């Protein structure tokens, strides 16, 4: 009788073990494929069954560049899966906490096999040894058809396959509002930009002369709203040895320019909580905003013009995205993963992607430009004025700090000089 009690206790105790067992079975299958909802803990154990059957599995993480990103890739990947008898688990990682998800995933061996990274992310993952130099998986011929293959040679190897090159940040203007203020063409220098802002403010105080996303969850605003001003003033984020060079005269000029925009009321006072600049522009509440060249698709019905780059005191450079596919060291079937990368960047798939999802410029030599024709010329003529952000240690982390410090400046907590000093100091003591 008493023994029964013990048996009972042991059974209960084993419940824990059972739960633990489920977990073990799930290990390694970080996403068991969309459309197969598992209905309970018991079913969670069926993860094991999915590994069998001789099919290789790959996990692919992509950001939502376009609205129908998931649908598009699910469809395209089906072809790849059928052709290679494998399974690709696609996961769309929202921009909002993109870097956190990668860091947590990769750190805990729950990361993808093939991922998508932007410049800020590379150094840390390369240093960790998380990325693979995939050069050997590509033939000379394959490499040659890419327009920007060499741009993926970072630090000490080919860790990146440029996937989105372009989407340069340009300034858009609502010509109805600008004309009303007596402005007939978009500004071409930072000084003209200030003048236009002033004219708009004077002619129609109800309209914001300029709007940007200084209240977004991440530092995305720096791309169009700060780096071009820094570069235009002749500044740089880091030197070639990876030392932060923000705290310079050029840096100060750029920060003070931003400060002026805010203090003069060219940026609305509420900009520190603004996380969407497109809507106010579309609604005619703002005269100008900065965004990538894929945005015209959204601007129907508005008489807009753009200025590719503002000439600063020293230079005229604007931000261009250089986002790449990466292959993770933890991937078990690198051959297949490289094949997937080639498939995704193939001319057919890329053309379809640019047509159906988001109008980035081509990355292959034999691919046609499908975006807004006004920018086709620009990409050819202004190529020298486009610049990608540098690859250095802790880039993402320090950009976040810089972003926060610039916000603090707008709220009056820091002076422009302090922004630069605090950011540099934080970098040197905590991140470097």
């Amino acid at each position: 009788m008493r023994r029964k009690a013990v048996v009972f206790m042991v059974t209960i105790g084993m419940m824990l073990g059972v739960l633990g067992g489920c977990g073990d079975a799930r290990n390694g299958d970080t996403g068991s494929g969309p459309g197969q909802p598992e209905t309970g803990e018991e079913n969670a154990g069926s993860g094991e069954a999915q590994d069998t059957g001789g099919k290789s599995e790959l996990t692919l993480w992509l950001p939502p560049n376009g609205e129908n990103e998931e649908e598009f890739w699910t469809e395209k990947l089906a072809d790849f899966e059928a052709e290679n008898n494998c399974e690709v688990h696609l996961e769309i990682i929202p921009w909002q906490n993109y870097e956190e998800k990668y860091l947590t995933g990769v750190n805990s061996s729950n990361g993808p096999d093939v991922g998508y990274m932007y410049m800020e992310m590379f150094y840390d993952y390369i240093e960790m040894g998380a990325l693979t130099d995939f050069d050997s998986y590509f033939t000379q011929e394959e490499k040659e058809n890419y327009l920007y293959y060499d741009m993926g040679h970072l630090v000490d190897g080919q860790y990146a396959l440029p996937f989105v090159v372009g989407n340069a940040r340009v300034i858009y203007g609502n010509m109805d509002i600008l004309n009303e203020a007596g402005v007939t063409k978009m500004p071409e220098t930072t000084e003209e930009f200030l003048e236009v802002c002033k004219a708009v403010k004077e002619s129609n105080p109800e309209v914001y002369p300029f709007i940007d996303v200084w209240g977004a969850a991440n530092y995305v605003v720096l791309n169009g709203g700060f780096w071009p001003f820094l570069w235009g003033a002749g500044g740089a984020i880091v030197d070639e040895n990876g030392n932060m060079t923000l705290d310079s005269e050029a840096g100060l000029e750029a920060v003070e320019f931003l400060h002026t925009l805010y203090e003069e009321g060219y940026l609305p006072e509420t900009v520190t909580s603004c996380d969407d600049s497109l809507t106010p522009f579309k609604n005619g509440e703002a005269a100008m905003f900065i965004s990538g060249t894929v945005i015209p698709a959204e601007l129907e019905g508005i008489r807009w013009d753009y200025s590719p780059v503002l000439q600063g005191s020293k230079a005229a450079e604007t931000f261009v995205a250089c986002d790449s596919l990466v292959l993770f060291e933890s991937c078990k079937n690198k051959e297949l993963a490289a094949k997937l990368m080639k498939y995704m960047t193939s001319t057919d798939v890329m053309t379809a992607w640019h047509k159906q999802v988001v109008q980035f410029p081509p990355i292959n030599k034999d691919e046609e430009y499908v975006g807004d024709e006004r920018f086709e010329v620009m990409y050819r003529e202004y190529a020298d004025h486009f610049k990608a952000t540098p690859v250095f240690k802790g880039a993402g982390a320090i950009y976040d700090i810089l972003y926060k410090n610039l916000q603090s400046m707008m709220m009056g907590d820091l002076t422009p000089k302090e922004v630069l000093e605090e950011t540099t100091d934080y970098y040197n003591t905590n991140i470097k």
Partner: protein
Amino acid sequence: MKKRKTVGGWTPLSVLGLCLVILFAVVCAAPFLYMFLMSFTQSKTPALRLADIDFTDFSNYIQVFTRNGFFRATLNSCVVVIGSCVLNCVISSMAAYGFEKKNFPGKEALFQIYLLTLMIPGQVTMIPVFIMMDQMHLLNTYTSLIITIVNAFGVFLIRQFMKGVPDELLESAQIDGCPEYRIFIQIVIPLIKPVLVSLVIFTFVNSWNSFLWPLIATTSSEMYTLTVSLSLLKLLDVSNFGLIMAGASISFLVPFVLYLFLQRQFVEGIALSGIKG
């Protein structure tokens, strides 16, 4: 007696009090009403215009369920909540029974340690727990989301209640030859049912609403709980405020409906956590 002069015993001061109480109640309910109404609009601005509301238009709900993974997230949240409630009740009532009705060396000292662990906030231990879960390959599993809900609070709570279960009852059952496990299941458990109900509700609300741990412990969207999915909702689309409100409504609706039906138990259950301090 002077006060009787005023109408029905309502002094100006108490009328003011009444107004404040009603005002605050309105403030408590209004955001949820706003959320619900807004979820039936396609509004691109945060202002609610009555003309925009269309109760036949479920497109926001359809979209969050089909395109933003809320279907899976709701399912995950349900599994996690049910798992948490069952596990917490079983384990806590067993431990409470062991502590209250059995004698073993070091019992009271161990119980003191239990009480001390209540002082440790989960946020302080989340990093080591994350690392351990990683080593055990438990991240992205229901297990990791469920077992972290168990803590000493349930044991403490049930033990307090179990003091009211007479020892004689258990002893006489023992003398009658009733096996140990049946004493626990058939005699003790029914007697502590009220406190179990409270613990279930307490666990339910905590588990359904927990955010930080699921945010860390799930990297795969297949395993996101509702709170995590909701936190990721604000970006994707061109800001349709109705969509966010639809997401918030879904996450709110389940506990709210339960609250409507089990009001007394809810209030008791949640108030119980007061004892935790």
